[in-house]
């Protein structure tokens, strides 16, 4: 079998993979929105997976492919859990700002971001006030009945 994936092609793949990884890392380090950070982390993961696939193809064995399947599986599970956690966090503070969650810092640590402190000092959302709001979906067919969720359970 003639190997179509020569070293030149491999370089392109690796460059794209590295770019994905670097962009993801930049996003993770610079954005404060939890979901965007999460997406960035996924991007880093995909950069890695792309490199693995390319190298696997180049070397003509299946190791990298198998590894990538495993990575995809793990990433899917991680996404499920992480998004659920993000939902819970949003319900606690009505915000996805990562800097609001700093309980585990040392008391002696100086404030890196002064504005954060004000946000953190703000009162927690009054749990009982007003009706719940949910992200709106584009209406398509009948809206399903919302089952009782854990957080609504907690609010009652």
């Amino acid at each position, binding site marked *: 079998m003639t190997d179509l994936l020569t070293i030149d092609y491999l370089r392109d793949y690796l460059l794209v993979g590295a770019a994905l990884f670097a962009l993801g890392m930049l996003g*993770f*380090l610079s954005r404060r929105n939890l979901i965007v950070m999460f997406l960035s982390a996924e991007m880093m993961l995909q950069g890695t997976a792309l490199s693995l696939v390319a190298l696997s193809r180049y070397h003509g064995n299946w190791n990298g492919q198998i590894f990538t399947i495993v990575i995809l599986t793990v990433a899917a599970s991680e996404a499920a859990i992480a998004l659920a956690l993000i939902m819970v966090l949003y319900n606690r503070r009505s915000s996805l700002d*990562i800097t609001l969650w*700093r309980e585990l810092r040392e008391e002696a*640590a100086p404030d*890196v971001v002064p504005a954060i402190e004000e946000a953190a000092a703000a009162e927690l959302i009054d749990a009982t006030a007003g009706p719940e709001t949910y992200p709106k979906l584009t209406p398509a067919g009948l809206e399903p009945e919302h089952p009782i969720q854990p957080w609504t359970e907690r609010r009652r």
Partner: protein
Amino acid sequence: MAGFFVQWVWLIPFFPLLGGIIAAVGASRFRFNAAIPVAVGIGASFLFSLGAWASAGPETTIVVSKWLAAGSFQVPIELRVDGLSTLMLSMVTFVSTLVVIFASGYMAGDPSYPRFFAFIGLFVFSMTGLVLSNNFLLTYAFWEGVGVCSYLLIGFWYARKSAADAAMKAFLVNRLGDIGFAIAIFWLWTIVPNHDLSYTNVLADETLRNFPDSARIGIPLLLFWAATAKSAQLPLYVWLPDAMEGPTPVSALIHAATMVTAGVYLIARSTAMIALAPGVQVLICVVGCATALLAAAIALTQNDLKRVMAYSTVSQLGYMFMALGAGVGNLAQLAVVASIFHLFTHAFFKALLFLASGSVMHSMGDVIDMRRFGGLRRRLPHTCWTFAIGGLALAGIFPMAGFFSKDEILLALAAAPEAAETMGLSWGWVYGLVYWVAILTAFMTAFYTGRAFFMTFWGPEKLPSPDDPEAMEGEGHAAEGDEPGHGHHHVGEESPPIMTIPLMILAGCAVLAGVVFGPTGWIEHHLQRMFGFEGLGHAEHQFGWGTPVLGLVVGLAGIGLSYLLYGEPNPAPARIAAAVRPLYLASLNKFYVDEIYQWTVMKLLWVSAAVLRFLDVEFVERAIVGIATAPRAIGRNALAVYQNGLIQFYAAATAASVAILLWLLLFS
């Protein structure tokens, strides 16, 4: 068939251990009598011991398995089946079997019944292992094992403070002696060829010839030091009388018949080495003599029946050491035979006396103070006559066992001055002195034995009642009612047959053991098969009528005097005590040995402990605490700022670190 018992000799320690484990694990769960597996196990060991007795040979050893191996230093589990070890084995397992049977009645109703028998099984395992092992190190391991069992059993009723204290005292005093044994082993290790600590190697003629002079004196001294602790000799005997806090079967088995003879066994086993140091031998003899005399003098006035027996044990062990010490020159064989013979007969009659005391105690509702009961010969007929036989044997009255063995010892002592002179030693006269002190001690022994017997069984009948003037608090063993004692039955009744039958069997042994083994020369013949026995100095057994007759006369005189004074209620003893009041008080208070130790050794220890505590708290602890504050200070002052709770900071730090690491790996 002979090879069979040698091949399987390891079963002798194994059976009691197995029985003990079964008793410990199963008895409370499956509700069977914990005494049964232990008794069966020890009984099986006894049968095997008899087989081993028949197949004993001076050079018969068997390697059971590997034990320790460090380079060329090898300590296998090697057992020696020779005359001495089989004799000890048979005696230990026989007495143990009877004591277990007795205890199954005596301890009935005790909440910790299975624990007791589990410990007994463990003890018999250790003791048989001790006498079987063919290696100083293995002997030492079992030596510690019996010490632990002794501790556990003295403190069996650990809720009682006196018992817990006595256990602690026994253990600590024994540790003091064990240090000597340990140093002796270290020393031997440095000088014997191949670092081989087996008796075969250490006690070989060639090895002993090549000993440096310091070791020739020092190692026997250290071994004797170890023996003084285990066998309760003069500087370290103080634990044994207190050990009577344990249950009476334990006192009979461990602190009279078996464990305390381990020291005698060790010295007898090493006789080939000790015979090379006549100076140490005379020391052993003098220490044994002094102990015998002192303990007998204390026993004269004790009111606690068990304590009389305890001091009598110390005294009789002193006799055994006297005999061992008398083995100068060509008397070595005779001395070993006399000592081991006395050990052998003593095990029977002392176990008998203790068990009979236990029977009395059982009947009197745990009262053991002889002033509080009396005239029990009609109420406790079996206990009475078995005690009488044991007492006669202890007093050395013909034809009981003690007569023959004590006679052997006195003969060895009588012959010692001459043997010492032939050796060119200048201290032969010491042995002459020791001989007369031994005779005096024999008289005292007969007297206090008779006193104990007449106070307990003779005179008008009297049962313990709580309003006795002597029923003081802290006096006696178990006067209080609510303590964890063994089961009570009706006060004043004879003990059940399960307790009296072992007494009768032991009484039979106390009568016969002397006659059968002594004059027939059986014991000597058997000890011919002891390792290294042939190499010991040998002299013709010179029999004279003088010593046995003298021994018999002083024994009878002692008993007669005790009958005169204590046979009937009599003001004479009190008048005599008043006449020599300081002496009487000194004897009653055990010559203040405990108090002297308290004010010298213990004070010294306390002072050094206080000094060490000061050093520890002020220097060691300060230093350690100081070192421990450093990481905390660094963390708080320098590193805390980086713990700022921002995930992205952490991620950036991680990424930077990985980048630096990659850089280093790839480009350096």
